[in-house]
């Protein structure tokens, strides 16, 4: 599947985008601070979309910032085996999981009632005006966390199953199964 697709012109097995990322990383390592800005500009919005598609509703900026901070501190460990963006998704996903665990602990401690959570959701939902989009959003919220991640990366970011497998920490085949199960679930919800 991934062999059949092309994300821009590929040079030496890398796309132009990947090549550009590596150049920017090298520039930043050599002391060019502006390269960091360009790196952030290239990937910040995709990271934010992934956060939203994974169900993150608040402090998306902070999550994206944390992802970049962690990535930049670990840049020496980035070997370029996967694309830089996929590597960023991997980091962001770990942060998301940490955040959810912390949130769960906090909820367990404060024992927030189900009604309170529903109220908060309703307030946020009012932002989404379009009814169709609201339906799509509701459909995605019914997916399992892994299905949401895979579906978001596939539909929202156009990642291949191989890239999704790297980001989510699963196999290519499992990523494909998650995607098709998610698509089926979304269709079923919309057909109800």
């Amino acid at each position: 599947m991934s062999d059949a697709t092309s994300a821009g012109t590929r040079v030496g097995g890398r796309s132009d985008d990947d090549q550009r990322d590596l150049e920017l990383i090298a520039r930043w390592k050599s002391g060019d601070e502006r390269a960091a800005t360009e790196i952030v500009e290239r990937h910040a919005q995709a990271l934010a979309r992934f956060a939203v598609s994974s169900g993150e509703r608040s402090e998306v900026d902070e999550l994206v910032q944390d992802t970049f901070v962690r990535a930049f501190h670990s840049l020496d460990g980035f070997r370029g085996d996967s694309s830089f963006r996929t590597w960023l998704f991997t980091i962001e996903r770990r942060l998301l999981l940490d955040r959810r665990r912390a949130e769960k602990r906090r909820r367990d401690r404060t024992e927030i009632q189900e009604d309170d959570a529903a109220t908060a959701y309703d307030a946020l939902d009012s932002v989404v005006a379009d009814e169709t989009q609201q339906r799509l959003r509701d459909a995605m919220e019914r997916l399992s966390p892994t299905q949401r991640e895979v579906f978001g990366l596939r539909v929202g970011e156009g990642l291949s199953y191989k890239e999704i497998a790297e980001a989510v920490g699963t196999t290519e085949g499992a990523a494909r199964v998650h995607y098709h199960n998610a698509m089926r679930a979304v269709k079923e919800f919309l057909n109800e």
Partner: protein
Amino acid sequence: MSDCPNAEMRDLLPDLLHERLDASLRAAVTAHVGACEDCRAELMLLEGVQRMLTKQTPRVDVTYVVGALPLASRKHAAGQPAARVAPQRRWADWRVAAAVAVLAVGGTSAALMERSNAIVIPGDTVQVVRSNPTPEPVQATPATVAGNPTPAPERAAAAQSTAHTRIRSTDTEQVATTANDGLGVGRSIGDMSQKQLRALLDDIGSMQAVPITEPEPVSLKVEGTRSSSEPEDL
């Protein structure tokens, strides 16, 4: 909404959406979508999801993100990933040296003062002076400055504090400077900031408290120095 039986084509719809197909494959998938109602509906669904995600995603403040990133020049300059630590370590070493200097000066001067105040025999006083080969202790300050390029304000502060010490007690200053020279810490004092010099003076001042509260007349037969019993303003 039903599924197209052509799983391979369905699989490629997200790639068509994100324009990740090469020309030949894109043409094939596009042709299939044109003829397949299910795939057309699914492609519209995918576009709707993509649009929804884009719309719901807040615009990231790039400046905010970049502001928290580590500085490349500090992280990777000269191939030293831990370069940021080095200045802190130097600063810590400097502080340790300053602390040692304060303790050494304070402790030694206290010990010497105790000796000079406890025994008022002139012979013992001469012993104190003999340990300092410099006849005029105040001259140590310019010598220190010349040996170590200190910023002008700091030099002025050092000179001022030295003069201040002289006003407070000539004898004490002589003993303190003697101790400094003997331990070789005069250079470190010259490097101190005004704030640290003040702290040092306060330390020395507090050590003077015992002899001052016990105004015992002491006569020092040392050339060029006044007796500690003389009033300071004379």
